[in-house]
């Protein structure tokens, strides 16, 4: 550990951590589909990161390091208490859609439908899928973040996409989404 690190995180480190909050929240939300819990997890990850700058060996890998911390926060949460995550929690997330223009209503309903299907996936698949799809991590990086062999990353991703394809293909085109939105 560098002695200088004892004098606190650099301004650049703090700035980058601060900028990562939204990313961490989005990822946490995609993992648990529970807005307050996602907030807790993201905040917990940020606090842990801020007190552990010395453990970040390569500043270029800040994003994957933060994601690994977030994954640990979620794992700790599950260890402590059986998760109450579930599809029903999704209902709380939806904003009031009644006054939205039809176009954005359709988009919201589509997003909600996709989230519901993602929430049905086993957590391991959900994490791999969202790290790849939302954050654009390579398979190798996902393996490092979740401490998984790359073969497991690929097979989980494969199963996740297979599970999603059927339910979601009817929604793939904007026109299909709109038809459903107006019933």
């Amino acid at each position, binding site marked *: *550990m560098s*002695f200088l690190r*004892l*004098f*606190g*995180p650099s301004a650049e480190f*703090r700035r980058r951590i*601060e900028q990562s*909050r*939204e990313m961490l*929240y*989005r990822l946490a*939300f*995609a993992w648990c589909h*529970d*807005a*307050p*819990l*996602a*907030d*807790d997890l993201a*905040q*917990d990850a*940020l*606090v*842990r990161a*801020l*007190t*552990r700058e010395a453990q970040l060996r390569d500043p270029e890998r800040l994003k994957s390091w933060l994601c690994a911390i977030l994954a640990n926060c979620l794992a*700790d*949460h599950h*260890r*402590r208490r059986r998760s*109450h995550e579930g599809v029903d929690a999704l209902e*709380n997330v939806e904003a009031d859609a009644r006054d939205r223009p039809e176009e954005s209503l359709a*988009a919201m309903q*589509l*997003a*909600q439908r*996709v*989230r519901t299907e*993602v929430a049905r996936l086993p957590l391991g698949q959900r994490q791999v*899928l*969202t790290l*790849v*799809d*939302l954050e654009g991590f390579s*398979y190798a990086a996902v393996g490092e973040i979740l401490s998984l062999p790359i073969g497991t990353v*690929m*097979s989980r*991703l*494969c199963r996740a*996409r*297979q599970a*999603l*394809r059927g339910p*979601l*293909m009817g*929604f*793939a085109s904007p026109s299909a989404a709109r038809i459903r939105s107006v019933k």
Partner: protein
Amino acid sequence: MSTMDRLEDVSREMQNAFVDGQLDAAEWSAMLERLAEDAALRRDICELRAAKDLVRGAYADVKPGGREPLRSRGWRGWGIAALLVACVAAGWTGRALIGAGGDDGNAGQGAAALRDLTADRILVHVSSGNPETLGTALDEVEDLLRGARAAGRKVEVEIVANSTGLDLLRVDASPYLARVATLRRQFPNVTFVACNQTIERLREHGVAVDLLPGVHVAPSALDQVVKRLQGGWVYIRA
């Protein structure tokens, strides 16, 4: 079905790797050749790509909301640098620093560092409801308080609980009701703070939260941690 036949040639994992840009140059070229001659494979790839786009789109607008964002609380004033300088001045070693950041899996690691601390204002962050972790944290806090009192040293200790760690301060869930009450009675210099975010979350799930008498409530554990760090407190994670 024709899809199954084709999978013998191009595995689903390879299809996904193609969609995710994870193939090397040779594999990429081979896949392009197959795509040129296989309409069903093209359809499969299209569907995988659509699924990927749908997932990405479904979370694109997800942003922290409903609660005051960290940013607006003035992160620029984050006092952790001052805190760490204070820790070094107080003889807090690198070992203690690592302990402060310890995982919950290493129960008590952070608390073990507590004994050696000579700082006078210490925040202990409890986010695990594991009775062993909670018990160790209470043991260490009590040791610290007794040691300081015996040495005539003035210390302030604040225990901030969130997530499942909030159990410590809940009348209906705390495994250490009597201990917390005794600690409060014996040491007026220890305070207990509950995270309101966790309380709200529990209430949203239909759990009534009844806190022990005298427990303070902060908007969030992080708010409280930030506030204390800015005030020069030492942060320890139990």
